[in-house]
């Protein structure tokens, strides 16, 4: 199974996602803020990043844009979560180069399915 980096500032949501994915056999690392998130991705070198859109320090869209600008991370699968399921957010995420976009609240089965899809087994 692969390695998931979860960048999420809400500890309860982070815990829920961690539980769901761990139960399925994924290794999950949680990073709780925007600032330094890019370095965390570089250090951890995960198979997939789950990225919250609203983060303290730096927004998920900025982080994603920078990742795509870096040749090392340009192709890394990124699943983005947002509590504002509006068109504007979806467009911003797609423009930044997101792999999958999901709105909170999500269903557990759904998030699991998306992660499985994004990471080639």
């Amino acid at each position: 199974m692969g390695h998931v980096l979860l960048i999420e500032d809400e500890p309860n949501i982070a815990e829920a996602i961690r539980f769901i994915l761990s139960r399925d056999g994924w290794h999950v690392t949680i990073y709780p803020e925007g600032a330094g998130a890019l370095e965390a991705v570089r250090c951890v070198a995960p198979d997939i990043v789950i990225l919250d859109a609203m983060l303290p320090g730096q927004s998920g869209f900025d982080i994603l844009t920078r990742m795509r600008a870096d040749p090392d991370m340009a192709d890394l699968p990124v699943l983005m979560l947002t509590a504002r399921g509006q068109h504007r957010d979806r467009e911003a995420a797609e423009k930044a180069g997101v792999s999958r976009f999901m709105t909170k609240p999500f269903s557990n089965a759904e998030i699991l399915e998306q992660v499985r899809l994004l990471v080639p087994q």
Partner: protein
Amino acid sequence: MPFNLLVLSCVSYVIFLFLVAFIAERRAAAGKVRWLRSPLVYTLSLSIYCTAWTFYGAVGSAAASGLEFMTIYMGPTLVFVGWWGLLRKLVRIGRQQRVTSIADLISSRYGKSNLLGVAVTLISVVAATPYIALQLQSVVLSFGVFASEDREGTALWVAIGLALFTVLFGTRNLDANERHTGVVTAIAVEAVVKLVAALAVGVFVVWGIAGGPADILGRIQAADRPEWALEPARWAGLTFASAAAVICLPRMFQVLVVENSDEKHLATAGWAFPLYLLGMSVFVIPIAVVGLEMLPDGNPDLFVLTIPLEAGRGDLAMLAFLGGFSSATSMVIVAAIALATMLSNHIVMPIWLGLMRPAVSGDVRRVVLLSRRLSIAGVLALGYAYFRLSGGGAALASIGLISFVGVAQVLPALVGGLFWRGATRIGAAMGLALGTAVWIYTLFLPSFGAISPDGFGIDWLRPHALFGTEGMDPLLHALFWSLLLNIAGFCVGSILSFPSPMERLQGAAFVGVFDTAPGPSGWSGGAPEAEDLLVMAQRILGEETALTLFLTEARAQGRAGYLPDPTPAFLERLERRLAGAVGAATAHAMIFQVAGRAAVTVADLMAVADEAAQIMEYSARLESQRQELTRTAAALRDANAKLTRLAEQKDAFLGQISHELRTPMTSILAFSEILMGDVAPEDARRQAGIIHAEAIRLTRLLDDLLDLSVLESGQVQLHISDVRLRAVLDRALAAAEHVRPRHDLTVFRDSGAEALVLRTDPDRLAQVFINLIANARKYCDAAEPQLRIVVRAQDAGVTVDFIDNGRGIPRPAQATIFEKFARLDESGQAGTGLGLAICREVMANLGGTIAYLPGQGGAAFRVWLPL
């Protein structure tokens, strides 16, 4: 006969008339008026009705269409015999109100409105100008019978001569009295000459040329002309027109009312004038028949002259010539006086006073005389100009009747004003304007080809077939439509408008003119009842104020009690006080009427006073209401601004709260879903399921609230693209599948109509469709639920109806189902209560509508989108 001799006899005749007029003026100035103001002179002066048009033209008309010329005499005869009361009323009002012309009468009746005076003046001038030209033409033609030389200058010299005579005798009086004894006497003499000439020629024709009455009757029988057949419609129409003309023609009004010196003269005129007309007309047919036999190629209009000449009776022809000359001159003179009075009083003087306002000196009388003289010259110049411009041809022949119909437009306002108190200025103006416009369009302009007969290509506007009335005689057609619209405008305008106090006063004075005895109506004349004045003053000033005023006045006069003597000084003071309350004109009219004991009864005045008081009270109330409204409007503006601010805050708040609530919901949902898994015992799993379901419902409510707040704020971003309606419906049906999936809802669609391509936001439209389909799935309670989706393209849009076969929505609820949280079901169905509210907002954002469609059996919604 040499031309010079003819001129000489004409000039001699005119000098003779000058002398008659001069002597009559002298005798009148000396107070010897008994004979001059006799009923006989009055009756003879009325004979200006018989112009050259009738003197010569009656024979011509008889030659062409038989007895039809009689209608011109029958109209006046009917009025004088049958409606003598109207004439008496006119004369009485004319004397009481010191009316100077028919324009003045109309203006005076409708609250002294100068606008109406101007209107009547203009109609009269337009109608009379061709008529005056006709008289000039007749003189020129009759000259031509005697001498072929120099016909060019004749009309001009006649016009100048007539202007001179009219100015000399028509504007001699510096007195305000409008009677012209000299002119009237001269006209009476001319009337005698006319009658004698007509009778002399007639007698000569019957007994001199033919062999007496029996022979003439035989010849009439033998003539047997088919064009002499009677046309009943034309007869009735012409009789009516001439009856109207004898009342409304300015010159007839002049001799009938203005120049009348004694009301009793009407009694004589009532039988004598019709007799005069009979005398003028009795030999017309014999002359026409004999003329047609003797001179088959001659102009029938001139038979009166040519038959005696042909028979070698130059003297008789000369008499006939003078008769025709008299007819023409008397008409022109009186018409010029009447028109000049109207022009001067209603047009020239108001303009002059307007221009000279700061410099008006005490004596305006010289200006009045000057303006009147200029007006006379102007009227004759107009007539002469028309004669020259029209070429003096056959176009003039029908002018007489056209003129009659024109002046008949004054009739409704005149007769209505005499008999109907409710007639108002607005009504009179509307009637006059409509009638005159129709007359000008259908008769006057077409008479000299100034308008094309096809009515600008609009079928119902053709001047001789207005509103599609084909086949009518043009004259009758114009008479019918102009008077119909005139009367309609007059009645409607009068009923819909409210008369001013002045109009009411004048209306009462005119309609009720016989209610009081005739008498002088000046300040000095009657002793007003102080008590009447007090009662009236109380109504206007209030009881206490009026009583105090009268008491003070009575004390000052040294009288006991509340009633002072109505001295001029007191009346003046009282008028000033009243003027402060009701306006100067009304106050003056009121005092004048009470003090003068004129036609208005005290009861009438009370009505006016009450009305004024009511109006004042009403306007005070209006003012306070207006202020209150202003205050309310300001308060509403404040409240609205506050609401707008609150709405903006609410939108921002909802957006924020939706996000803040979503985060914990996410955890709750995630963990409850985990607990629903097999890690927990059975009961805990079931309860976690409930938590999960409720959390989903709560989330949906949050979504809807957020969506609604965005839609209502108008900040929604639309993603417009071209999309097939079928695709949107497919998507919506698929998306609605999960709603109560155990229910089998049969959906009927119309794939043909669904091929339509729309330009809209597909997601938003699908959102609406999903809502409607989901509602059908949830609420359709039929045993075999069905949903019909009916698509219909209309010219500007497309309607998509969603009709199920359930119970439908009860009528009282239909009005509120699009409101927020207006859920009907008490059955605990899952739903936020915002679905239809969102649908309505989405459709509004898409430029369409959604509405409940009642009467379809089940619940039915119609979505409409523009194409």
